[in-house]
């Protein structure tokens, strides 16, 4: 499967570079929980976006109004005080447009900065802990490949997956205004878990195959480990996707993009455990010798 090793070295590298370029050039659409800001989702009596916008002009609050599905509108603004919030509500109530306030979020700039910091810490901590954990789990293989190289290879594959999903959401953010928020970071961390999980299973198989067959070269053994775990990788990926697609179809709007991130992550995570992690491990092993 990965006998054309050069292809599987270059392709992920290109993916990583392109994804990184997209993130840097297009720039992420940050959610209000990172930047600070307000978001209101309202159920209305046939309110039209233009008239609502015109009506809300009188509150002197700079805000944007977007249509959502089924007569729902979304209003975004700077962090609102309670007075400004009730001012908006009372204007809409006066015109008898408001059916129900579905949700209102307002995050001050300090909370935003704090959440940004926490997310960065959580992500870096997760990556470091995973390298350490993998090095520990695979300490018995140290005879032929340094354990930390297995850790590094797994993390490389995860970074590949995370960048891919991030780039996808940067594009989605540009096209549909999908925000990168705490829910996205949660999805990213779940993907990290899944991706490393998948890679561990293949590396474990590789360990068994390597110990069983003396004499075969590294690439052959890696390829055999891949082939033998293939049914499992696909079946697990497929079962996870089955649940995720059901969630996407009927799970409601609030978690829609969270599920999309998980679906993208599951697909790219399954792919990377077969075509990204083993090839980079091959090069890492060569490099040291």
């Amino acid at each position: 499967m990965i006998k054309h090793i050069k292809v599987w070295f270059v392709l992920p590298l290109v993916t990583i570079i392109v994804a990184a370029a997209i993130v840097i050039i297009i720039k992420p659409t940050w959610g209000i929980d990172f930047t600070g800001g307000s978001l209101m989702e309202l159920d209305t009596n046939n309110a039209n976006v233009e008239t609502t916008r015109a009506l809300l002009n009188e509150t002197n609050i700079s805000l944007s109004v977007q249509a959502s599905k089924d007569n729902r509108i979304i209003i975004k603004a700077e962090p609102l005080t309670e007075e400004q919030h009730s001012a908006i509500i009372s204007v809409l109530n006066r015109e008898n447009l408001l059916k129900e306030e579905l949700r209102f979020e307002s995050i001050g700039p300090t909370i935003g900065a704090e959440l940004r910091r926490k997310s960065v810490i959580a992500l870096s901590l997760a990556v470091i802990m995973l390298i350490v954990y993998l090095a520990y789990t695979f300490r018995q293989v140290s005879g032929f490949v340094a354990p930390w190289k297995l850790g590094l290879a797994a993390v490389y594959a995860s970074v590949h997956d995370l960048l891919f999903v991030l780039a996808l959401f940067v594009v989605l953010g540009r096209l549909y205004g999908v925000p990168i928020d705490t829910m996205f970071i949660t999805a990213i961390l779940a993907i990290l878990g899944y991706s490393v999980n998948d890679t561990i299973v293949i590396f474990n198989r590789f360990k068994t195959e390597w110990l069983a067959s003396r004499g075969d070269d590294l690439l052959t053994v890696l390829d055999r480990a891949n082939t033998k775990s293939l049914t499992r990788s696909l079946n697990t990926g497929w079962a996870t996707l089955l649940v995720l697609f059901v969630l996407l179809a009927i799970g409601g709007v609030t978690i829609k993009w969270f599920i999309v991130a998980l679906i993208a992550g599951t697909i790219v995570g399954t792919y990377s455990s077969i075509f990204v992690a083993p090839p980079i491990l091959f090069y890492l092993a060569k490099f040291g010798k």
Partner: protein
Amino acid sequence: MLLLAVAVWIDSPLHPRLKIGQLERDLTVKLGLDLQGGAYLIYRADLEGIASNDAKEAIAGVRDVIERRINAFGIAEPEIRTNQVGNEYRVTVELAGVHDPNTAIQMIGATPQLDFRREVGTDEALQQFNVDDPSTLTGPVFERTELTGKNLKRSSVSFDSVGGQPQVNLEFDGAGTELFAKLTKENMGKRIAIYLDQVPISAPVVQAEITNGQAVISGGFSLNEAKELSRRLNAGALPVPIELIGQQTIGPSLGQESAQRSIKAGVIGLILIAIWMIGYYRLPGLVATLALLIYAALFLALIKLVPITMTLAGVAGFIITIGMAVDANVLIFERFKENLKAGRTVPYALEDGFKEAWDSIKASNLSSLLTAVILYAMGTSIVRGFALTYGIGIILSMFTAITVTRVFLTWLTSYRVTHRRLFLAVKNIKPLS
């Protein structure tokens, strides 16, 4: 088996409460505010001018006052936490199931400011307020005194003995009693106005010096107004000012919609997985489905017992662990089938299948558990909800996949009739000698 029986008993809606000696539990699933509607409020306490050693105490005072204010208005079980971020002290308030969060926010923020003012003559007022034309001054003019709501000990509602009108009784503390006595003595025959939130609500004429520290506000209240004022006065003032710096409010209908939809999605997902597993793995697939159902039963029992508040992110976490529970079974079955194809008999193939798969299951689940722990430590409420159910799900699913699948599969394959392609989806299984 016993564990399962207990779990099913707990899950059954027939027993809404559990009582074992001291231990008493409400056996209904606690829903987070995103599933039943509610508000999540973050306040920053302004501790300017308060010595750093007193900060902890001041913040605890804020907590207590907020709690009293919320409880006074009968909002079910608010969760109030205080935490320190850098130099900032925060109070977070979670109000699940509140249908009108905006009122709740006003209640928390509203400090009833009570103060007593004395009447000043027109001449005195002219000097003080620097008014050019005396004729613009109409009605009595009042001036602030030192006596305020700070000096209040407690307040209650009673009825006027003459007209039966509701009124609010005030009882001052030591300093307040002295101030009030002095005030009434110096202003005999004049009026003392009681101001609430800068608005005069009552201005009785002083008939005598009052030394017992008791006063009455009779402002033509309705009974409810009198009760509300009394409660607010009793709840007291916040020791330090607070500022709302973040909030998240979910309306009840959006919450309900999300809850129903996710439950439906979970059930359909389980059914689809069951169909696929039974079709693909046959008998082992059936056992795995059983293990999955037991896993779901145990999970539900656990979140009811602990109890863990289910949020939308929590539901998502649970649904993802279904995938992981399936993964453990898939790993075992793939090894099992591989061993069968290699020409081993069923009991050995199964035993080795479990042994070989365990390594991978352990390693991969531990790495996921590690992620769950980091997520939990990162700790915003949404992420925590996810991390908690994800972590619990990983441990439980690992347990059920290994034990339940193993026990049932070993038992079923002890009947030789099952050693066929129809049941195990493998051709030419080597018969037991």
